[in-house]
């Protein structure tokens, strides 16, 4: 069922702009995604993610520029492009009074479903077999996302466009979903994932792009973005400047900074920023997110005894964020110590603090 032009990138976006009621939603977006990659586009609410997802999915034609899915133009060859892609919108599923099987059967009958793929296959693939006859209304958010994925996989596309698949899923189910996406990538699918949250996306994606106010501010691998941001370039300087602005100045000033503005106004912003001392940035500290079945206070008490640990912060979801110094041995020591003191650890994930800082500096969000 899936098809692609040989040597064509899975997704090629070139100079795409889109307007809604005269206002620009996306401006001159360009990127490519090679086959069998996961490309994450991270952006805050209102940055244009959903519009971009709609354009990528062929649901809307771009006002300017072009998008090709597996080499097929989404406007001129929309049908062929659609055969090559599966789209998971946000929210993922509708028709709450249908059962899982009925929902998939409806799309199998109505759309371009493969005659060789059966509902049981996609349910098995998305681990929803046991919920086959359950009503959609009774599914949790993670299961709904998986059902949406199952529907998108019905015609066995080579590219998946996923709009916010993990944003409303709780951490436990998010891990399962991320594992599923990895499996899909490993089975040959190309995934474009749009998300408002960075957590989890950076680890999952081969490459990421940062979308803000309709512009793709950066794209590449996580290391590339960090490296590029660290260079003493005009862009880096602007990022740091933006970082200061984001801390010291109101949102309106930050917004205006991101838009094209006269040189005079830019100079004024630079002067204001340079007169403000930079905030203390603890770039050398690494962070670890720890989930456990124990009381966060107990974890905090144990960790406070370690010299490597700089700070411990209890997060709303019950996990703790540990800032520490040292390498992987330090992490191993910390975990060992926690286990010895009776803390029941579920998971420990390194956090890309550097990437988060860059994301916030580029998009003007609070640090």
């Amino acid at each position: 069922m899936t098809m692609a032009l040989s040597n064509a990138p899975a997704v090629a976006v070139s100079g795409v702009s889109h307007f809604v009621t005269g206002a620009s939603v996306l401006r001159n977006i360009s990127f490519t995604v090679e086959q069998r990659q996961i490309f994450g586009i991270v952006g805050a609410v209102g940055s244009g993610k959903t519009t971009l997802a709609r354009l990528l999915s062929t649901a809307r034609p771009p006002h300017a520029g072009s998008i090709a899915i597996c080499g097929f133009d989404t406007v001129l060859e929309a049908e062929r492009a659609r055969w090559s892609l599966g789209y998971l919108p946000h929210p993922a599923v509708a028709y709450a009074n249908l059962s899982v099987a009925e929902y998939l059967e409806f799309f199998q009958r109505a759309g371009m479903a493969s005659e060789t793929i059966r509902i049981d296959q996609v349910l098995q693939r998305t681990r929803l077999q046991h919920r086959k006859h359950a009503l959609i209304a009774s599914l949790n958010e993670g299961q709904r996302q998986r059902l949406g994925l199952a529907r998108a996989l019905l015609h066995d596309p080579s590219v998946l466009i996923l709009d916010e698949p993990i944003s409303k899923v709780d951490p436990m189910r998010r891990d399962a979903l991320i594992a599923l996406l990895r499996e899909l990538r490993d089975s040959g699918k190309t995934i474009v994932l749009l998300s408002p949250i960075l957590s989890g996306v950076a680890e999952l994606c081969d490459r990421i792009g940062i979308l803000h106010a309709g512009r793709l501010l950066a794209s590449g691998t996580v290391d590339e973005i960090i490296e590029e941001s660290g260079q003493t370039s005009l862009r880096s300087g602007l990022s740091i400047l933006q970082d200061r602005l984001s801390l010291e100045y109101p949102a309106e000033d930050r917004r205006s900074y991101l838009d094209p503005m006269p040189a005079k106004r830019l100079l004024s912003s630079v002067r204001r920023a340079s007169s403000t001392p930079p905030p203390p940035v603890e770039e050398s500290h690494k962070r670890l997110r720890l989930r456990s079945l124990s009381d966060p206070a107990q974890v905090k008490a144990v960790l406070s005894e370690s010299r490597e640990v700089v700070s411990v912060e209890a997060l709303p979801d019950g996990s703790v964020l540990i800032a520490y110094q040292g390498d992987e041995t330090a992490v191993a020591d910390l975990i060992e110590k926690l286990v010895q003191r009776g803390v029941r650890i579920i998971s420990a994930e390194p956090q890309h603090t550097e990437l988060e800082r860059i994301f916030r500096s580029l998009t003007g969000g609070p640090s």
Partner: protein
Amino acid sequence: MDPEAELSPESRVGSMATLPPTAGAAASSPEQEDFEESSFGVNPLWLRELWLYGRSQRMPLTLAVLTVIATLLVCSVGAVASLTQEPARVGNLLYQVFFATAFAWVTWVGSGMAATLVASERRGSHWDVLAVSGVSAPLMARGSFAASLTWVLLCLAMLSPIASVSFLFGGVSPQEISGAFLAMGAAGCVAVGFGTAVGAIASTPATALLIAVPSAALMSLVLYGVGFVTSYMVDMIWPVVTGGMPLWWPTALARAEGDRYYWLLLVGAPLLLCTAACWFFYEVTVASLSEPGEDRSTRLRAWFVTCGILLYAVSASSALWLPAERGMNAAISLTLVTLFSLFGIYSLAGDDTAPSTRVLRQWSQEDTGAVRRFFGPGVVRAMLTVCLLAALGIGLQWLVAVGLQWSTPAAHSAQDLTVLSLCDGYLLSFLCFLAGFVAHARARSVSGASPRLLLTFVLLTVAIGPWILASVFGMADSFGADSMLLVASPSPAFVVALAYLMPAHGALPGGLLLAGLLASVVWLILGLGMLYAAQRYIEREQIPLPRDSTPPPPSVQWI
């Protein structure tokens, strides 16, 4: 690079290898249609709605409440009427009351139900998924129509036992009751089709409901009134029908003799009208549900041309059946041409200004011929179609008149034919002007709303403007036949004035004839000029845009 050449099995990614549709295929590709028909044969949207109906707790409750209310109504009316009336009259009264209620229910609720269903789907979060998954607009339109009609038919099925009460009283035959249910089914089809079309156009489900239900209510009341008035006329043709009974069609169908009027007026005409209405609503729904870059014009244009030819052929041939009433036939024929052309201008004013790049590519790949392209997207082509069809209608009517003049010269004067020719020419020129005006306005606007609004304004201005001017300049006091024609010459009222005044006036004064001719020539030149200007504007503004990187100006459609 030829995509077909690149599609080697090695170049495909993934595990399955079923052939995709051919390049440039429409939303419902032949392969997909085959798949739908051969593998399952049931519209999936209809099936989905049946599943949802099955789980809905409101549906049985609604049907039960409806049945109870209808039973109470029929029993109350029957009880009150039976105190003073004989059973046969009570039966007839109950029959009228019951089916009037059923008619209201079917038209109001059917249209509202269909409008809400389609609008919810169209504006819902899952619409993109349906479109991207290959659910075509025709499939969607048919499914929504079938689902809503199922609901209406379920209501009728629930009500059917109550209808038998009127039969038990007497005065009504089972055939009449069956015919009335058939009429309710037909009314349901039209109402649901109307609701579906409104739902596809409306921006929100609430808007759809607010437009569909009051419009359907108004139309049903008008139809009910028409039924009341026409019952007296029908009584003259078929005395078995009692005057003053709005629901006369089933009675006439069951009791009248099967002559040619029976088949023409009781079977053929209703069938054609219902089919044409449902077909129109279906095409409007499909066009509204289609994507912006798709061909949303051809099917609607096909409806317009087919119905136009049929209508004009019937109206022209009626002159052959009733040759003695030539004046009346010509008036009816010209009125039909004018009304249908105006309807066409209003309907097709929303057509895309030009074919999208997607459609052009599809035409190129399929090697589409010139005729098929003429019926494709493009407001100038649409308006030309209206003009050509009007010319056909007027020409047919004129040919019939000439034929009658030639065959029976003693019965008709040569002046009648001259008047008729002048009326025909004037009307055609004026319709050309309206078509050109709308094309010109549409070429410079983003939707069909402003051209329609401007057209209404122009029609009103042209219709009453000359009379207002005449009054302002003090000509109103001295209105005679000549001055009336002179004043009317720039407006379509000229045709009416000419037709009504000439028999009394006698000979045609050359000055008035000249005024009429001059006005018609001006309308024609203006119309053709504006059509040409619209086409030039569209060619200049439209073609370079699709791959430009600058924002679109507000007056231009990109896709």
